[in-house]
């Protein structure tokens, strides 16, 4: 495309099929404790 570039190489909607295993880290345990930042957690389900 000439006018638009998409930055993502992965899309949220593609996680619908395999997501939800719940093995990932609880967001508040990492480094916040007073806010909620979820999008920076990593996924444990690489399979």
């Amino acid at each position: 495309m000439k006018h638009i570039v998409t930055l993502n190489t992965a899309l949220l909607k593609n996680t619908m099929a395999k997501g939800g295993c719940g093995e990932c880290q609880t967001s508040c345990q990492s480094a916040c404790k007073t806010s909620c930042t979820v999008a920076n957690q990593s996924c444990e389900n690489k399979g």
Partner: protein
Amino acid sequence: MIHKYQLNGHNIVIDVNSGAVHLLDEEAYELLNNYNEEGRLTVSAAGLSVSQQEAAAEIEALKQQDLLFSPEIYQEVLDKVEARQPVVKALCLHVAHDCNLKCRYCFAEEGEYHGRRSMMSKEVGKAAIDFLIKNSGGRRNLEVDFFGGEPLMNFELVKEVVEYGREQEALYDKKFRFTITTNGVLLNEEIQAYINAHMHNVVLSLDGRQEVNDAMRKTKNGKGSYETILPKLRQMAESREHKNYYVRGTFTRNNLDFSKDVLHLADLGFSQVSVEPVVGPEEEDYSISREDLPELFKEYEKLALEMLKREKEGKDFNFFHYMIDLSGGPCVAKRLVGCGAGTEYLAVTPDGELYPCHQFTGLEGFKMGTVFEGVMNHELREEFEGCHVFAKKDCRECWAKYYCSGGCAANGYNMGGSIYSVYDIGCQLQRKRIECAIMIKAQEGGNI
């Protein structure tokens, strides 16, 4: 729903539901002003220039792929999440309701949490591990954060719980990730070695510049804590080869120029930094107010630009709130339910009482049970289970909902009276952080 904004010369468009992030040239960005919420062009295509028509065709192609103005399709994911058997996978163990510092903004009331000073016993610590295993269902990865007050004031107990957890994980095919959050006052070589051997992550509290830190983080006799703790925290970070730790600070109304504190921490050699806004009662002089927001937005921008500059110079560091993974990150199920407070994540008091999270500890009406008898307040658990992004009107209409996942329930309760409320000042700052984080990605990888 889309969100469009301009920052540092980039025209950025987030397609909220698909999660797609696009960089646009001026022409396409301007043209998007002529689309309504449903993604329909509201001006005649015949009146567009050839170049605008090209841009319109690109917008149309993205719409066809559900990458722009894409519909909300996640109710079925939420239904599945809600149908899951409740499990607990993370505990915040308040091993000491006591502290050796006296920080002005402490939500734990200098460690006491609306109660009395107390230390967790071995019996409670072990029962917490048993409770977690018993209630974790099929989850393998389990987390225990040693928290306080100041957890190093009860470090013998920490070691006993770790050892017991290691024995039990082998028996039950679980994997414990232990973490600790400390002010560093009691750190010594022996404790440091133990933490390095057993803790997956360590959070070290320090606010930034000496005068900023010392104005809020005082010793019991009213002196600043910076000089005492800094060498210990540096040694800790170095001994972990600057991995799996965070130096974590809080900024207040007294240091609205907080980017200087973040950079100060980076200049001290810390490569993993998390500094976030204080959440305090409106009447406190240090609390962030609405009128502070414009200045704070500028600070976040300044910080992002400085980080990009340092990255170029090979002096990069990681700022927790600018971490964003456009090539992966958590699944939509996780993003719908957020931190898991009151459901997957619980806090345990020194006496073994269960609360929805560390911030609810000791608050009237939020006791959920004990580690000995389990979760007894099922009504409260259901209330937390239902507290997802679609259940909060403000979140449902917000473009950032899949990044913050509905924000902090405790902040909602403390500032708005309900766990289903949002704390608007916090939300505005969160949105600004996301915009800056994505701009950094645009600068690093985008070219239009």
